């Protein structure tokens, strides 16, 4: 029963955090949002450059996805930690600096431990800096939520990106080279090498998006 005594108790409860959103967001919903509902590649259509360029085979796709996920998790974490001390005007520049730092780190680690992968990913490792996904998550989530949820969001979104890349990469590899993750499936002579070429990348992504749209339509009808 509400009377003048219960009112003050209600007020106290909401003074714990200055962001009410923090309390209503469950970690699991944050995770699955990034993975499925707001999948960066298939739903938000962000980060198209590496998607088309690094999916010539499933392994490079996986490598790219994991690298981007690592950068995403750590930059989300860092930005979430410092979100209250960064002045609003230089917000974007600060985010880019933090992200660039982690990308440089990842680049050096890749070149040192898996140089073959670093070679095949080439210029797209440093280009993770301008990957719209990471900046979008930094601006849209990490700057507004606590570090723990930001890690979950980074993990979910990064995993969504990786899964999408591997799906596209796997398709292109199976159709284009007759193998998957390096294991030969059928005689490459029968493969349509178009799919490992840039044109094939566009076509594969376009068709996959079309299929997803088709599935969405059928669900709503």
């Amino acid at each position, binding site marked *: 029963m509400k009377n003048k005594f219960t009112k003050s108790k209600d007020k106290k409860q909401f003074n714990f955090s200055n962001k009410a959103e923090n309390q209503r967001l469950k970690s699991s919903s944050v995770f699955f949002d990034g993975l499925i509902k707001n999948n960066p590649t298939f739903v938000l259509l962000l980060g198209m450059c590496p998607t088309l360029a690094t999916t010539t085979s499933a392994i490079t796709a996986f490598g790219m996805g994991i690298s981007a996920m690592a950068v995403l998790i750590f930059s989300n974490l860092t930005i979430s930690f410092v979100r209250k001390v960064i002045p609003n005007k230089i917000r974007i*520049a600060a985010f880019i600096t933090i992200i*660039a730092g982690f990308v440089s780190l990842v680049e050096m680690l890749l070149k040192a431990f898996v140089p073959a992968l670093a070679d095949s990913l080439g210029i797209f490792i440093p280009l993770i800096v301008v990957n719209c996904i990471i900046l979008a998550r930094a601006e849209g989530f990490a700057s507004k939520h606590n570090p723990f949820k930001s890690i979950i969001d980074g993990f979910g979104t990064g995993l969504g990106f990786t899964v999408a890349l591997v799906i596209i990469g796997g398709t292109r590899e199976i159709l284009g080279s007759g193998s998957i993750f390096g294991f030969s499936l059928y005689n490459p002579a029968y493969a349509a090498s178009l799919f490992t070429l840039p044109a094939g990348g566009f076509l594969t992504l376009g068709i996959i998006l079309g299929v997803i749209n088709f599935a969405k339509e059928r669900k709503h009808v």
Partner: protein
Amino acid sequence: MFSSILTALIINNVVLSQFLGICPFLGVSTNLKTASGMGIMVIFVTTAAAIITWCLQIFVLARLDLLYLQTIVFILVIASLVQLLEMILQKYIPSLYNAFGIFLPLITTNCVVLGVCISVADKNYSFGQMLTYSLATTGGFLLAIVLMAGIRERLEDSDVPKFLQGFPIALISAGLMALAFMGLR
């Protein structure tokens, strides 16, 4: 030199072969006017950024053995350049500033700019080579985005199945374009 320009423009087109600048390529190419505006902006920003980063690379980063800072320095140069350009345009040519609206800050995250700067640094181009490469590559971007805008404007009037509308058909068109350009090798 003419052949290298032709290579960068058409045969190794930055968007259709090197996969840089896909986001604006797909996002801004719905309208011929905005597409050409974006393309010209990219040419300008990239060349300016290429000059600055080339100087930084040779005179600062290499001399002081700070090559590991390359990514951070380059992207900061690009971001500040775009910010500066925005402020200058806003003050001196406000009509142009209003016409470009949100596209200017978007160029910061354009893969083409950073891609060209890093390529130039990696391949150790001379000043002249860098200029040629930058202008030809971004010219290729302009070419690709204007072609795409033309195609998409036509597509709006045609009968595309509902599930292919928007991005999927744009990507498929881009794929066909890439195929066509491939034939020029």
